[in-house]
């Protein structure tokens, strides 16, 4: 009994810890003009107003940024999932020269401080005339998300028994058909996780987008939100309202796939 109470207590404590910051953002967004400044801890007060949300949606380019972000993230996700699922399969199922090297180099790409890559990215993209163009972002985002996605997909494939493919091959399926018709559907939990990761990495990326996109009509959400944040005059109310709305699609995504989340994120639990 005592154990149960302790468990509940600690869970509730961590629950407060994990949602309070977002409630704080909510309260700031509802405060109207003097958004940032309040000595009260209450979230809803008598002065609460949705004015900031109204201004944000109808008087700024927020919806355009939202559209751009959704578009970029969706394309990145599709590219990322299709590339990661195929190459991870090869890495999981076939032994070939340089395989270990490739696996390690995937991990190694995560080790270089990404801030130093900005300048060379800019140089390449401007040589290829991809500045102010979504293609530049598609390429960079899907490739930077790939290493983790490949690694993660590979771990999942490792848990799928080999006998499945052997049976399919005996039945006369081609390698591609085996992969496409049998392995891929089984792996949907991992595919979902991969999709989630690609989506999130492009949804919240800011630094590269700031380099590539210069036309405000092409801005993504992080860039747009940043523009409320002038050095000495931040519009906290608009910023907070925007921040909340930015979190919503990701949260919906997380909630809708949360049952895949646990089974899909294997991190190499079982050796294949």
């Amino acid at each position, binding site marked *: 009994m005592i154990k149960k109470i302790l468990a509940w207590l600690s869970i509730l404590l961590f629950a407060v810890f994990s949602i309070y910051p977002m409630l704080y953002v909510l309260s700031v967004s509802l405060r109207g003009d003097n958004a940032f400044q309040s000595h009260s801890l209450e979230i809803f007060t008598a002065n609460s107003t949705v004015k900031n949300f109204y201004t944000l949606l109808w008087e700024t380019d927020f919806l355009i940024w939202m559209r751009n972000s959704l578009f970029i993230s969706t394309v990145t996700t599709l590219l990322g999932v299709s590339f990661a699922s195929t190459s991870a399969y090869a890495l999981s199922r076939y032994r070939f020269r340089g395989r270990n090297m490739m696996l390690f180099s995937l991990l190694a790409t995560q080790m270089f401080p990404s801030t130093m890559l900005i300048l060379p990215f800019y140089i390449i993209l401007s040589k290829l005339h991809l500045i102010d163009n979504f293609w530049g972002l598609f390429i960079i985002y899907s490739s930077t998300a790939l290493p983790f996605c490949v690694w993660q997909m590979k771990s999942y494939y490792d848990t799928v028994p080999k006998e499945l493919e052997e049976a399919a091959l005996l039945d006369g399926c081609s390698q591609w058909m085996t992969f496409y018709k049998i392995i891929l559907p089984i792996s949907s939990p991992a595919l979902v996780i991969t999709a989630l990761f690609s989506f999130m990495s492009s949804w919240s990326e800011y630094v590269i987008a700031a380099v590539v996109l210069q036309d405000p009509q092409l801005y993504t959400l992080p860039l747009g939100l940043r523009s409320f944040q*002038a050095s000495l005059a931040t519009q906290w109310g608009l910023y907070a309202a925007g921040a909340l709305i930015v979190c919503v699609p990701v949260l919906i995504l997380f909630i809708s796939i949360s049952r895949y989340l646990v089974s899909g994120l294997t991190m190499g639990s079982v050796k294949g």
Partner: protein
Amino acid sequence: MKFQLLSYFKVFFVLYISSFAFSANSSGVLEPSANLKTNKPPQLRIQLWHQMIYGHRQVLSEALRQYEKENPGLVIQETYRETEELRSGFQAAAMGGSGPELVYGPSDQIGPFAAMNIIRPLDDIFTSDLFSKFDPLATPIYQGHHYMLGGVVGNHLMLIYNKKILDRPPQNSDELIEIGKNFTIDEDGDGKIDRYGLVFNYTEPFFFAPFISAYGDSLMTADGKPNLNTLGLKKTFQFILDLRDKYKIIPKECDYETANALFKQGKAAMLINGDWSWGDYKDAKIDFGIARIPLISETKKWPSPLVGTAGYSLNINMRSPEHLRAAVNVMKYLTSEKIQLLFTEKVGVLPSLLALRSNPLIKENSLLQISVNIMEVGSPMPVIPEARAVWDSLRIQYQKLLAGSVTPEEAARDAQKMSESQIHDMNEILQPDFSALILKLFIMIGGLWLCWASRGSIVSFIKGFHGPQRFVYFMMLPAFIGIFAVIIYPFFYNIAISFSNFSLRTFQDWSIIGVRNYIDALTDARIYALFGKTIIWTVVNVFFHVTIGVFLAVIINQTMPVKGFWRTLFIIPWAVPQYITALTWRGMFNQEYGPINIFLQKYLHLSPVQWLSQPFTAFAACILTNVWLGFPFMMIVALGGLQSIPHSLYEAAFLDRANAWQRFKHITLPLLMPVMVPAALLGCIWTFNNLNIVWLVSNAGEPGDQTHILVSYVYKAAFNLYRYGYAAAVSVLIFLILVLWSLGSLLSQYKKETK
């Protein structure tokens, strides 16, 4: 089910593509060159990057739309960038041979830009009598050339007072302290100040610089050398400390937002702020007056605010002579009488054209008249690139002083030393030494050897396309081409510049100089200290991520009803984009308005903690933020691991009367290890290289550069101090450290498993 999911994706995709098919052509989303295909007269597109605050942006946009209407065929695209981002973004763009035609910003950016040779001198473009029409402050000169045409003059600090509280501003510092004391009150007697005499962003050197000249010294000598180890600076340090600790008329911790907020709520009688903030107070319906910052009674001198301009400069890169012509015309238009008056009328700034000073709009504007009077005691903002090193060193030492780590004497001495060494590093053009030759030889021989040694592999690689493993190739290649195309070139580019003298003075023509940057990095004691701190940062973070993650996972898995609900609840921190997390927590740690301190005071009756102005607490704040965003990932991984543990094991243990702890120790933990170790490994790499949190929570390493970890230090060296070569060398070192460490831990894990 699985099939369904895939088809959802398809539907989603089709919907998206079709919704964009309509918009793509009209707005030119996917084809920036779309306008070339239409039959209209060819359009000329001029880009302008600026850092105007919100109110000013509206006026700029109005002016530009008007200009476009008058000049058909011309499109002007204005882009807002935050000041620092504008600086680094413009550097990168100009370096890549492009960038906006026009760039608008404060006058101190022309020094670095001109030194890098990425903006144009204006002397050949405009006649000298055009310059003479402007206030000299608006046409700053760097090394004998004009580089900027200012649209406004000002940006200077002044004393702003709330007329409801105070009917007359203090005339000298004694009066300031007297009035300050009278108005610093704890109304309800709970030990917490409810109203302050004076507030300002005093942790930022720009805001305390005016006092230095009142104590008789200047920041820089006339020939641009730092002049910090002075009596004046020490006295100024002491003055601010006295205001805070002896007279207690300013808050213990006060950043710009807090000062602004306190004043707007009528909780501060006086404020030191710049002319840009007037609009804000007018909107907040504060009845305010302005005055000079009070005379220092001891020296009988006025504090001298820095007066600058913000204006337009021309990019060195122009796509065509037409672009240059058009850009020059836009620049003339934006600094013309008409537009300057528009700005004055709408946002109340002081125009830079001398002819306008007698305009009734300015004559009858009492605020502007007092402002002109304040400017008389001002001094021009230094524009040389070295000023940046002076500001930076001053900021670092000053914040250390405020945190109580050094005395005023030490702070002044160290600031001088530091600025001298920073200026030296910034201006030094490293010459190729002997190692450069060896290096080049080495690379040549290495390259040839690599080609020779891998000739077999290359042949078999190409043959592989037709061999039985063809399938593997086609599966592998798309991803790896993507990864290598995007990562490999930048990676080698960085290695190349890590051996080069790429810096402020060699921005356009750098060359390989050998291993100097590595020697500099490896002989610098700071790097080792930072390395130690980064390890603490990584270990503490990953430790908490994993323990909290496993703890929650075990509890949720064993005792909680509605597992899905709790799982979703704890995922929230993960779903929030990192930059939002960082800025939210920064707000929560605010000394005056942050909910954490309010909670401490209201419910625990503790005194407020100055989270962000003490090195230890600031670093702890960064760690807390990062723990918050990192534990959900580990929790999910652990939940996955727990589900794969067969239930029969627990039943057997139960029969053997193992208690909960024994069950955890002997069943759960060992079986979770194979799942948690790779996750923790990846977590370590991510945390080690996580720039966002430290940079944004501690506001670029505050206080006094004492919260940096290695990556944030690299970022600062590259983008704030222009030492690209050095920064690249440190990043290569970071990379090597991580590669060696992860190889080591992978190997040791491999050994354990095969035992």
